């Protein structure tokens, strides 16, 4: 007999286990089912920097959090309603984040004395009452899986490894997720190992059936599809969206895409994705280091390609000298920095927003460049196109800032109408009156001509040594240098009139506090602002995509509010720039924990400030 069904408007589930337990895969699949079901969602994978830390230890814990709802949501959520803990380490590592009353599904098979000891549990928390505050479902997931699989021609090890599918099946039933996608997925993934495939399918179904039949779960939950704008949707991570954006930009500009890159967490997946896309004529060059990566991209740009390089913090530092050269020779180049926690190697798999000032100033001399940042995983697609637009139009390197949270996090994305994407075609220089002036500038954009090798009559030399404006010949003339320094600055400043003004979301127009953010904090700030408003608080929100130059109206926007709060996952980098720009006494709010903000923390800060304006 069917069980009673309870409606929920939103749920946050966290799958946690050992690096070897396949939690990322499990989370991915649950996310896909949820996506196809039509909920809005947001995810937060979280894994160790090591490939595989010792089994059963805290550093080895890998988790995946998914937040889904019947309305549009902005973050992966602060506190899980459900924790799936595949072993004691997973339980201990995640317990602190659980609100009292949350459901905890533990795999009791793994709660052996040895495993408990590994994380310092003297007694078994599942039995010693220390979980009384939660709804604990103690299940022998491993043995149930193995039992379900007896008769299958696979090793015990393989049988045990299928336990994540059992768990997935159980959760899929519990939240009434459509299972087809996962079944198809397993068919495809294990096509070459039919026995393994059958085992995983069986395990999944066993989990599902267990949920349906066991007394352990009295109710099944239902989260209705969200009413999102009509269209075709897919779930997408920031890195994939960024890669797609670059391919789109290449198609829209008609320029072949050349990526020069060196692997680095969390940027590598962009290289991986683009490497697959040779049918689009994409050339990916895995260089010997970051310097060669951007060097090759610049060489390709000199030849008329869309030159791109992708990296993260430490690699970005190494690229500085070549970025400076690109700025000097004024060629288009797109530089993607997927920020991670620093300084130095820092915490490679954790997120941070602390490369902003490096992006602006990490080069010798006066070397201004356009800098833009992505706000959500899907926004990486649009910002990649915008970065390319600016680079091609103004003949300048452009820095695009993403971060580890956007890179690996995902959200549903409404596919854009390809026909509606901007036209990025460029006109290469054509032979005109001689002598050719490689540094004669377009009076409007101040961009210089892009004259590519192969064009007769435009032979010219470019150099990182200061060049005479116009002829481009080496010049040590004092006046010319000052002119060039100011022209390079003016070119970047001028872009302010070619980008949309900052839009402020201030429903009743009577808020006295503005919360201004940039980059991946968009979701958490947005969620916090909503909650504050639900509580009757008046607060305005604005988010910056363009950080250099700032939109022309930013100064006015700032002066339009009594107080401006600037939350950043750094020590106040945008704050410094805003104060420098406007002398407005903006108030920073900074957490630097390698994680996205908790909306709850922001709610608190915003309410505090409202009560004091």
């Amino acid at each position: 007999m069917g069980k009673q069904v309870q409606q929920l408007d939103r749920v946050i589930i966290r799958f946690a286990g050992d690096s070897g337990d396949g939690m990322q895969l499990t989370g991915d699949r649950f996310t896909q089912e949820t996506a196809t079901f039509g909920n809005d969602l947001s995810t937060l994978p979280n894994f160790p920097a090591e490939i595989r830390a010792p089994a059963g230890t805290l550093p080895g814990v890998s988790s995946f959090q998914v937040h889904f709802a019947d309305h549009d949501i902005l973050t992966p959520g602060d506190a899980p309603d459900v924790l799936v803990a595949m072993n004691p380490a997973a339980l201990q590592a995640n317990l602190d984040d659980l609100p009292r009353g949350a459901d905890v599904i533990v795999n009791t098979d793994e709660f052996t004395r040895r495993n408990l000891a590994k994380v310092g549990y003297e007694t078994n928390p599942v039995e010693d009452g220390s979980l009384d505050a939660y709804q604990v479902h103690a299940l022998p997931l491993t043995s149930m899986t193995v039992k379900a699989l007896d008769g299958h021609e696979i090793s015990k090890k393989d049988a045990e490894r299928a336990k994540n599918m059992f768990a997935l099946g159980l959760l899929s039933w519990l939240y009434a997720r459509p299972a087809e996608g996962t079944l198809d997925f397993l068919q495809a993934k294990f096509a070459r190992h039919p026995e393994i495939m059958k085992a995983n399918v069986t395990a999944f179904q066993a989990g599902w059936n267990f949920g349906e039949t066991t007394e352990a779960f009295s109710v099944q939950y239902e989260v209705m599809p969200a009413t999102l704008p009509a269209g075709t949707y897919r779930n997408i991570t920031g890195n994939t969206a960024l890669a797609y954006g670059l391919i789109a930009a290449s198609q829209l500009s008609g320029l072949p895409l050349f990526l020069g890159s060196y692997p680095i967490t969390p940027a590598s997946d962009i290289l991986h994705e683009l490497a697959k896309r040779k049918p689009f004529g994409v050339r990916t060059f895995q260089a010997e280091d970051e310097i060669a990566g951007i060097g090759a991209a610049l060489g390709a740009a000199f030849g008329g390609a869309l030159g791109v390089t992708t990296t993260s913090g430490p690699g970005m530092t190494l690229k500085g000298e070549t970025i400076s050269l690109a700025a000097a020779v004024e060629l288009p180049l797109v530089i993607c920095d997927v920020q991670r926690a620093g300084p130095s190697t820092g915490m490679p798999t954790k997120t941070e927003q602390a490369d902003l000032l490096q992006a602006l100033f990490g080069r010798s001399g006066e070397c201004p460049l356009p800098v833009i940042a992505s706000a959500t995983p899907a926004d990486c697609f649009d910002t990649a196109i915008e970065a390319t637009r600016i680079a091609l139009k103004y003949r300048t390197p452009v820095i695009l800032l993403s971060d580890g949270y956007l890179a690996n996090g995902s959200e549903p994305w409404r596919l854009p109408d390809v026909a509606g994407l901007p036209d990025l075609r460029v006109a290469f220089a054509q032979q005109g009156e001689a002598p050719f002036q490689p540094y004669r500038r377009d009076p409007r954009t101040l961009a210089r001509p892009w004259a590519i090798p192969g064009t007769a009559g435009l032979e010219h030399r470019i150099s990182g040594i200061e060049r005479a404006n116009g002829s481009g010949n080496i010049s040590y003339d004092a006046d010319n240098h000052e002119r060039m320094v100011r022209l390079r600055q003016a070119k970047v400043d001028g872009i302010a009139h070619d980008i949309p003004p900052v839009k402020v979301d201030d429903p009743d127009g009577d808020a006295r506090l503005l919360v201004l953010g940039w980059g991946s904090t968009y979701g958490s700030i947005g969620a916090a602002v909503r909650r504050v408003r639900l509580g009757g608080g008046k607060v305005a929100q604005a988010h910056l995509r363009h950080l250099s130059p700032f939109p022309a109206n930013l100064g006015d926007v700032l002066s339009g509010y009594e107080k401006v709060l600037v939350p950043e996952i750094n020590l106040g980098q945008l704050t410094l720039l805003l104060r420098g720009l406007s002398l407005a006494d903006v108030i920073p709010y900074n957490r630097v924990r390698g994680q996205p903000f908790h909306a709850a923390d922001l709610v608190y800060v915003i309410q505090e400030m409202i009560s004091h304006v």
Partner: protein
Amino acid sequence: MSEAEHDQRPASLRLVPSTEERLAAKDFKTDQDVRWCPGCGDYAILAAFQAFMPELDVPRENVVVISGIGCSSRFPHYMDTYGFHSIHGRAPAIATGLAVSRPDLSVWVITGDGDGLSIGGNHLIHALRRNVNIKILLFNNRIYGLTKGQYSPTSEQGKITKSTPFGSIDAPFNPVSLALGADATFVARSVDSDRKHLTGVLRAAADHEGAAFIEIYQNCPIFNDDAFAPLKEPASRDDRLVRLQHGEPVRFGAGRTKGLRFSAQGSLEVVEVPGSAAPDDPVSRGTLVHDVQRDDPSYAFALSRLDSEGFSHTPIGVFRKVERPSYDALMATQIELAKAGQGIDDLGTLLASGDTWQIG
């Protein structure tokens, strides 16, 4: 040049257009005054290079010269082609990106012993390993010229310079050995003062598909004058210079009576052979007949070790020239195949790949 003739071109230039009418050396001179010291070996190399260009038979607009930083790296400013005077040590990386994306260009890299072997050493060996279709000319004056005379990775041990007033203590690289150790497919050496020889080496490099490495001994009269004097003095020259000619027995010394033979330990030893001796003549049996195409670089490597700081025996010419598809050619092939294949090549389809769902 006719279609037919064009197809006769070496693979390295097959995709590069040829000229309508023959150009002259002067067509490659720019209006910039050349800024090297009087007597600098770079002048001779520039002259030889410009004189070689017409022979290369590539339109000026399809020739690109890329350099790093150094006196030598000023080179592109004096070549009326496309040019990129970049930053210290990075020219091979920049050239790689250009060559890989533009097979219709003839790409030349100009570098120095500091630019190419000190700060740029890694890019150099990786470009050689990958066999990217670029031609690298390393002007080796065994000194940092532009920065006014510090020792370089090719300076002889014990050298007194601004930065080593007590004498340098590190052993120098042998650039030819290093290139061979990096699995380079084309490795050669020439001398600034021997225009004819240099031109021959340039020709061979241009014809080679893939990365060509040419070390050019270059005199810096200001900071390291006469560094290569022993190879230039008429008196000693013939005994010291071992001119390598593919297919020819290796002969040198006054009267060309000296030859080379491998010892049982795989080192080369100098042996006397009657001048006239043909390769198969008993007396000369076992002495080397130069072969640039040996797949095993051990042979070329052994030749490179003949060289010694004292220039007792210094081979010049092409050490190695073997066939291996170039990186850019392989990349182009992969792209063609991929485009011809089943993979997604439509933007809309790409965006909609994976699980999608409809709303509304």
